[in-house]
């Protein structure tokens, strides 16, 4: 018969769960408040969410580094903490965007905020573990919430996008579990550190490479889907277009950072072990992704869609760093996303502000065609300048933030000896410059579009504050580079990457 087992509370290291407990508790709190009193204003929930996130942020900051907890399921290494911080910062910037000048369907649900917090919790779980099971559960929790959040925008586009995202996500989930199964079949483990141990002993066995690489391949499909690498990216532009602008911006950062961490853990393991085919798969995906998505972004007529493709390209750009297997490369991923976060969220927030109630005035389908921004400088100089700053940052023009990110990623690539890859990366940046520039050209150099004076109709103080913060960080990033870089490098290196 079974022996009763006793587990000491200390060994569980419950503190490792504290951030997630906070956020799930917060979500439940919102649900309870909604149950107790209906018709509370959105602003209440927004601020509650921000507070919860803030507490979560504090809890995350206070975590010890490189701790495991709960039967080693939880893993709080440096990258998990950095990733969680990024997730939380992005979430804190995202949530106030609900306080718009106009009413939107999704914000009328208190559940929206609960779901959002659940989603954040899911993401946090995903990065705070190296157990494939928990990664999968966290992923699905977050994804299911995300699909719903997108659909709650309740336009045809949002529903269609959510449906596409959902379906492809289901398929990707299938690939993920099959990949996990393959790895499990080889190693008998579902925890990455065990997997690494076992693989290390078996790596020399003949034929082992087939299931090993096969597993990685299947996982890569799932990762590629979530990080939106070509050709698994196809949902991305459609969903971004359909979703509300802030949601699109959020999606371009948080799920990707999260999945990037998973990729670092899973694929990094292979690369670290010297499985060259995995490395080449990553590089190939990265190169194809940046190149094709840049080209596709080039021919877009809608700014939001363009930004969708651009975020794919950025993902590909960062993905390249994954193949390098150096501390610097891994650090550069976080640095890049840390900077990308502000810029891209800011850019999407600007689109959100420009969301006008005249609907499809400039184009039967698009909300944000380039023409809409024509001559913006004449009516809203500040808006145009800020948007231009974001675009220049995305282009990689110094001194704006993303330049430093690109610099560091390319530097990592060069250090690792992949000079050709670095050249491909910079050439892609050059292609990308065209479509970012196009928006600047429209805003600054073209005559004003009719009705442009109503472009800021969705403006509200919170939105302006968020945009302001993003713009300030984007512009003054050089001054935070040193602390940011040393912090991230430290966190990544203590995690053993």
């Amino acid at each position: 018969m079974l022996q009763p087992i006793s587990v000491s509370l200390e060994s569980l290291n419950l503190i490792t769960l504290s951030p997630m407990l906070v956020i799930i508790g917060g979500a439940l709190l919102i649900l309870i408040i909604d149950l107790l009193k209906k018709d509370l204003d959105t602003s209440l929930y927004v601020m509650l969410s921000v507070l919860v996130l803030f507490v979560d942020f504090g809890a995350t900051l206070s975590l010890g580094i490189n701790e495991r907890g709960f039967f080693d399921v939880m893993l709080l290494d440096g990258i998990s903490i950095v990733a969680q911080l990024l997730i939380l910062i992005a979430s804190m910037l995202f949530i106030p965007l609900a306080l718009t000048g106009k009413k939107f369907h999704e914000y009328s649900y208190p559940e929206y905020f609960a779901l959002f917090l659940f989603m954040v919790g899911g993401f946090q779980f995903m990065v705070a573990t190296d157990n494939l099971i928990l990664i999968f559960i966290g992923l699905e929790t977050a994804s299911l919430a995300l699909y719903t959040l997108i659909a709650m925008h309740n336009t045809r586009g949002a529903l269609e996008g959510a449906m596409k995202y959902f379906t492809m996500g289901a398929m990707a989930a299938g690939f993920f579990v099959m990949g996990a199964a393959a790895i499990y079949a080889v190693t008998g483990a579902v925890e990455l550190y065990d997997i690494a141990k076992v693989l290390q002993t078996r790596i020399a066995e003949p034929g082992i490479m087939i299931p090993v690489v096969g597993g990685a391949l299947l996982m890569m499909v799932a990762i590629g889907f979530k990080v939106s690498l070509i050709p698994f990216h196809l949902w991305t532009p459609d969903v971004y277009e359909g979703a509300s602008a802030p949601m699109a911006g959020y999606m371009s950062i948080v799920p990707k950072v999260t999945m990037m961490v998973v990729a670092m853990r899973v694929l990094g393991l292979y690369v670290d072990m010297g499985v060259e085919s995995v490395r080449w798969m990553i590089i190939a995906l990265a190169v194809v992704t940046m190149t094709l998505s840049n080209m596709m972004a080039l021919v877009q007529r809608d700014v939001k869609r363009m930004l969708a493709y651009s975020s794919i390209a950025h993902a590909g750009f960062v993905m390249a760093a994954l193949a390098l297997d150096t501390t610097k490369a891994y650090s550069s991923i976080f640095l890049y996303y840390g900077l990308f976060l502000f810029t891209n969220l800011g850019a999407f927030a600007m689109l959100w502000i420009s969301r006008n109630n005249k609907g499809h005035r400039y184009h039967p389908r698009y909300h944000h065609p380039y023409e809409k921004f024509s001559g913006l400088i004449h009516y809203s100089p500040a808006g145009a300048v800020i948007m231009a700053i974001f675009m220049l940052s995305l282009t990689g023009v110094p001194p704006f933030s993303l330049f430093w990110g690109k610099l560091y990623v390319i530097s990592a690539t060069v250090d690792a000896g992949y000079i050709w890859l670095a050249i491909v990366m910079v050439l892609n940046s050059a292609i990308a410059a065209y479509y970012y520039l196009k928006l600047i050209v429209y805003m600054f150099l073209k005559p004003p579009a009719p009705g442009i004076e109503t472009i800021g109709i969705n403006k509200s103080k919170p939105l302006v504050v968020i945009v302001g913060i993003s713009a300030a960080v984007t512009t003054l990033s050089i001054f935070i580079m040193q602390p940011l870089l040393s912090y991230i490098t430290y966190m990544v290196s203590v995690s053993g990457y």
Partner: protein
Amino acid sequence: MENILSVLIFFPLVAALLGFVVRKESIRVYGLTVAAIEFLLTLWLWFAFDPNNAGFQFIEYIPLVSDFGINYYLGVDGISLFLVVMTGLITLIGIIGLGDVKRLKNMILSLLVLETAMVGVFVSLDAIVFYLFWEFSLVPMLYIIGYWGGERRLYAAIKFFLYTFTGSLIMLVGMLYVAYIYQSVAGVWSFSITDWYALVLPISVQKWLFWAFFIGFAIKVPMFPFHTWLPYAHGQAPTIGSVILAAVLLKMGTYGFVRFSLPMFPDASVAYILPVAVLAIIMIIYTAMVAYAQEDMKQVIAYSSISHMGVIILGTFAMNAEGITGSIFLMLSHGIVSGALFLLVGVIYDRRHTKLMSEFGGLAAVMPKYAVIFGIMLMASVGLPLTIGFVGEYLSLAGFFRISPIMTLLGGTSIILGAIYMLSLYKKSFFGPVTKEENKKLTDLNGRELAALVPLVAIVIWLGVYPKPVLVPIDNSVKALVTFMEEKAQTPEAKAIIHVSTSTKEAK
């Protein structure tokens, strides 16, 4: 004022930001004042500069990202000093000569921002900071060309931006690689140019790095076959845009060669003299021919810029003090002369709204002052002795003669071909009877235009007759550079080709 360089960089930027408050009606005076103060500051820099010190002066050093070796590191030597002064001057002259354009305020503020970037490029001693200003200079220029330009301004502006952006990105890869090597040798990251100078690179590495930097600089210069953005940019840009583009922005490329390529890759630079010189000669001859075929006055001058830049490249790759000093002087003189020529074309464009030579003829009779100043600038442009244009061209060619007499002969056709297209321009526009009725009533230069042009004429003649105050500091720094290159060069062939002046040798 030990931090004068920071002041020089940030004064226009701060002024531009504050300028948003200034009301439209007063913005011209504001711009003039700011540019004048900046120019005076550059002059102050010149006077405070010790011409006998060949090294960097007014050094400022503030760590920015110390983990990654990026520092706010500034300094000037004789090579960059005058480029800074010229930047101040040309900006001031440009603002003086600025006609009535739409949205004057935006124009002036963009110019001030541009000035920050330009000064920054020339005084940065950290590669990343250099790159920062280098890239950032594209933005205001994009706006200036794209907003105030001609009919195809958008095409021109975007082409300008993308082309140079692409080139400099490749250069960035090169920079990162140098930094990486530095890191692997020295153990710490550094993007300081002076640190990089100390780095002896293996020749094979030098060779590809040379080309990586080359692409960045060559597109900016612009060298054949990367030059096609320039005619569009000039053709479409407003007068002030062309002036600054030709006078300062192009010089960034050649400055880059002197600042980076030569001292960092002496062996590669020597090894690639031939291909570079061939490109330069193609530039000189081919673009001179293209210039001759133009119908638009501005395009003639645009292509002539390319042709002259070819001579500068030849001088730079002469690997001796004569040639390099000459090329730097030619940068200055070309800046002033081409700036003036673009201003002059702007004058006629303001009056007639066309730049086609066929629209003119006999202007000398109608606008004598204009014709005189144009003539002086033309002569400076074709390198007449006792004008500023001669000194640099002569020294550049003389320097390169040591490398290859034949190629110098080919490159020297610049003085013939230059005369051909410039004189034919002058003949078509200024000589002959006045055929068009509209041209008979043209007014001569007004006070504002004279105020912009006369100082340039004075400089053209002053530095043509007495270039010594400028030449000596340049020469000192260049001699130091050449000596340094000779010491650093690894192959005996390179050592043989790099020619250290006997005076330097004796001083040792």
